[in-house]
């Protein structure tokens, strides 16, 4: 708490300092607006970058068309002011709302796909909007003058009309907007949405497997980001008093909104501010030195810095600054709590009238010509532990992907808790109570161990604080309490496996799918992991386990299913199965051949 209040104090101090700057410049250099203008640009670009950062930085969805949203804001408020006499303050909100709708509409189809697609669509959108506006002379009878743009009438000092004489008024408005957007960023970062976005940025599939709805989180962030970007557009129009599509919707603006947060530290709250503080003055200096004749010099520097940062310094300024100010505090080492402290896992594993909890029937999936799984059928009763064994390529992980919905089946059914699963996505199935771990662990490497587990607890928790407490309990259960504050990229392989188990358990599953928990783990970590799995079993949770280590799986499972080339060849009690000659032939034979 002391750390939090110190940060708040520092922030308030900075705001007061910034508020006094116009007074100081007036005393020192008289009514010279140039320096105020430079500071306004710094804050303006910091603001825009922070607005972009909500979706681009926090969510890792790089929009390269935010200038289009800026243009929507600038044009909406200006047209309303010029033709209907609506105060730009109201126009600003109208533009923000319009941009939020447009941004959401662009984002909606993209967020069902992923990655580069969103970047392409945003840039294509901004470009078409710019060219379209350049070619349009009137819209619904309103003259917008195409490429020539239009001047806003000068009304003198009319704060109610968002007009000030001199730069000071604009300075304070911009400062206010900057404080608002940085506060919004800070709040989002600590909210449910912030954790979801951070998880999605690191690994969208893993986030979905924990019950996070990726498309919804991204859409919400995009709507917020669009709104604030358009608000910045209104400010721009009022400050300059003259708007053209070529300038307000330029690729230049879109690119600067990307470069600054990347340099400042992508995904951080204050990164956009640091980036603007460095880059805007560089732009001013090159313009002062080389003026109009060499107009692109600052863009060369921006581009080169962008490349340099991405190649050599991907974390950017903010984490580096924090490292200078204070070494990251590690959470104090807690004594390893006994398993009894942990919540009872089996609370939700109540049997549904003696029926199987999971039943797969005739399940098939092929990849091109290759068979993944063919006509597979088996059941898992509530509270039962079933092991799946088979050589590499037998189709074990494919079965998991079909049950969790990561892959669509070619044919056959998956029944869970008396309900036939159809087109449910992985996140929907997670919310139904199916959790999994991944064969190759997939922690959210930018989050701490505790935050990793929080992402899993959040979809069911009433508040972030509750999720934090819940996550702490599961970390303790997994024997990682002493590593809670460590960034996941700093965990060992064994610890990452424990983290994945804690994360899967924190979703409160009714059925847990464990994919090779002991795979790739060194001999020293093995006994601890096996004890942990036995602990989970002892809580009465229903488990489906893929395991190469036969000793581990025979000790753990009530029943084994043997897969060979995508088909079930045996099923039964562990001892009977592993001594079956056919199984030995397939399993050991393959193992020998492989080794």
């Amino acid at each position, binding site marked *: 708490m002391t750390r939090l209040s110190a940060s708040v104090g520092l922030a308030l101090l900075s705001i007061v300092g910034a508020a006094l700057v116009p007074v100081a410049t007036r005393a020192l250099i008289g009514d010279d607006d140039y320096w105020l203008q430079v500071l306004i640009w710094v804050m303006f670009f910091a603001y825009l970058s922070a607005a972009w950062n909500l979706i681009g930085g926090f969510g*890792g969805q*790089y929009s*390269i068309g935010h200038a289009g949203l800026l243009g929507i804001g600038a044009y909406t408020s200006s047209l309303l002011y010029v033709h209907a006499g609506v105060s730009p303050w109201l126009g600003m909100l109208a533009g923000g709302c319009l941009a939020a709708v447009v941004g959401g*509409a*662009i984002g*909606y*189809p*993209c967020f*069902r*796909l*992923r*990655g*580069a*697609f969103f*970047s*392409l*669509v945003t*840039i*294509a*959108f901004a*470009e*078409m*909007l710019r*060219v*379209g506006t350049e*070619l*349009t*002379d009137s819209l619904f009878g309103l003259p917008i003058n*195409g490429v020539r743009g239009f001047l806003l009438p000068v009304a003198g000092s009319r704060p109610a009309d968002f007009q000030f004489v001199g730069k000071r008024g604009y300075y304070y408005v911009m400062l206010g907007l900057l404080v608002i957007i940085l506060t919004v960023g800070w709040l989002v970062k600590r909210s449910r949405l912030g954790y979801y976005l951070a998880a999605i940025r690191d690994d969208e599939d893993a986030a979905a497997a924990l019950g996070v709805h990726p498309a919804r989180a991204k859409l919400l962030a995009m709507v917020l980001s669009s709104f604030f970007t358009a608000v910045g557009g209104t400010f721009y129009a009022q400050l300059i008093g003259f708007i053209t599509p070529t300038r307000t919707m330029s*690729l230049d603006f879109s*690119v600067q909104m*990307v*470069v600054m947060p*990347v340099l400042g530290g992508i995904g951080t709250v204050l990164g956009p501010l640091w980036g603007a503080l460095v880059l805007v003055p560089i732009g001013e200096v090159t313009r002062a030195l080389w003026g109009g004749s*060499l*107009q*692109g*010099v600052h*863009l*060369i520097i*921006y*581009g*080169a*810095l*962008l*490349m340099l940062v*991405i*190649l050599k310094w*991907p974390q950017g300024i903010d984490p580096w600054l924090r490292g200078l100010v204070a070494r990251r505090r590690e959470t104090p080492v807690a004594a390893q709590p006994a398993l009894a402290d942990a919540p009872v896992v089996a609370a939700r594993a109540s049997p549904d009238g003696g029926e199987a909890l999971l039943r797969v029937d005739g399940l098939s999936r092929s990849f091109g010509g290759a068979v993944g799984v063919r006509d597979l059928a088996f059941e898992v009763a509530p509270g039962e532990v079933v092991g799946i064994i088979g050589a590499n390529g037998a189709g074990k992980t494919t079965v998991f992907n079909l049950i969790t919905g990561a*892959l*669509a089946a070619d044919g056959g059914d998956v029944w869970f808790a008396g309900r036939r699963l159809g087109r449910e996505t992985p996140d929907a199935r997670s919310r139904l109570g199916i959790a999994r771990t991944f064969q190759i662990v997939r922690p959210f490497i930018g989050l701490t161990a505790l935050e990793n587990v929080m992402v899993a607890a959040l979809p069911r928790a009433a508040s972030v604080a509750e999720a934090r407490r819940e996550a702490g309990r599961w970390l303790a259960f997994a024997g990682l309490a002493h590593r809670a504050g460590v960034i996941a990229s700093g965990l060992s392989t064994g610890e990452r496996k424990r983290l994945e188990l804690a994360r899967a358990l924190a979703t409160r599953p009714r059925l847990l799918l464990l994919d090779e928990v002991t795979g790739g783990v060194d001999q020293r970590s093995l006994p601890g992991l096996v004890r942990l799995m036995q602990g989970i079993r002892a809580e009465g949770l229903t488990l489906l386990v893929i395991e190469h280590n036969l000793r581990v799986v025979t000790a753990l499972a009530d029943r084994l299913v043997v897969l060979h080339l995508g088909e079930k060849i045996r099923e039964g009690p562990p001892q009977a199965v592993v001594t079956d000659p056919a199984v030995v032939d397939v399993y050991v034979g393959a193992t020998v051949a492989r080794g």
Partner: protein
Amino acid sequence: MRGLAQAVTSGLLIGAVYGLIALGLNIVFGTMRVVNFAQGTLLMAGMFMTYWLWELGGVHPYISPLVTAPLLFGLGFAVQHLFVSPLLARERAREPMSVLLLTLGLALVLENVALLFFSADFKTVTTDVSMQTFKIAGLIVSVPRLVGLGAMVATSLVLYLFFMHTDLGRAVRATGQDREVARLMGINDFRIYGVAYGLSAAMMGIAAAVLVPFFYIHPGVGTSFLLKAFVIVVLGGLGSMPGAALGGLLVGVIEGAVALWVQAAVAQIVLFAVFVAILFVRPAGLLGVERR
């Protein structure tokens, strides 16, 4: 009706050149799952090379790809080797998004360096074919644009044969499907990426050659074509090569036909409407494949 037919013809011919650029984008995306923002810059570089070959050496633009394509291949291979590969080696994501930002930075640098050296003045190359037209069934056909259509068809054909019937082409396709598995099969994935990037750069030499006789040359020319190519790629399907060709022709026809028939602003609105409609109905693009 005659006017419309004429507009469609003109649109098809310019759309072919758009398609060629989109094809270059999709080769890189299909292989590395990376959107190459420097694609337009490579086109711009190719156009300047072609221009100087003509100005200084009197080399006809249609012959220049013999020089520019290998040069651009080398440039593309070098960019891949110096900048993109180190990043790909670090990123484990299936779609390494940081590469997109890297190529964006590269495009900014190269375009503005070109602005510094060549200034923003428009340059033109007037060859014997520049103004030539002929009439067929009452339709006026511009010769250099027809050459553009021919170049797209020929390039697509050569690429098809390369990808389907050579070992190197198969290796490129395999790497695009699964980098890890391709590596396990003994394919040097980074060399393949270099080949793909170089190939898509070399294609910009061909696009430059067909553009130069009838289009202005200036440092921003690449970006303006690249932005069109993005629209095309989204329409046709990201990573789909037939999609690039189809999308290019579609955009060319909408721009040409509606602009001539009604007006240019309406063409942009129609294009935008089609874009949004396809986004909602088939988000993966006309010929794109949704992967799950």
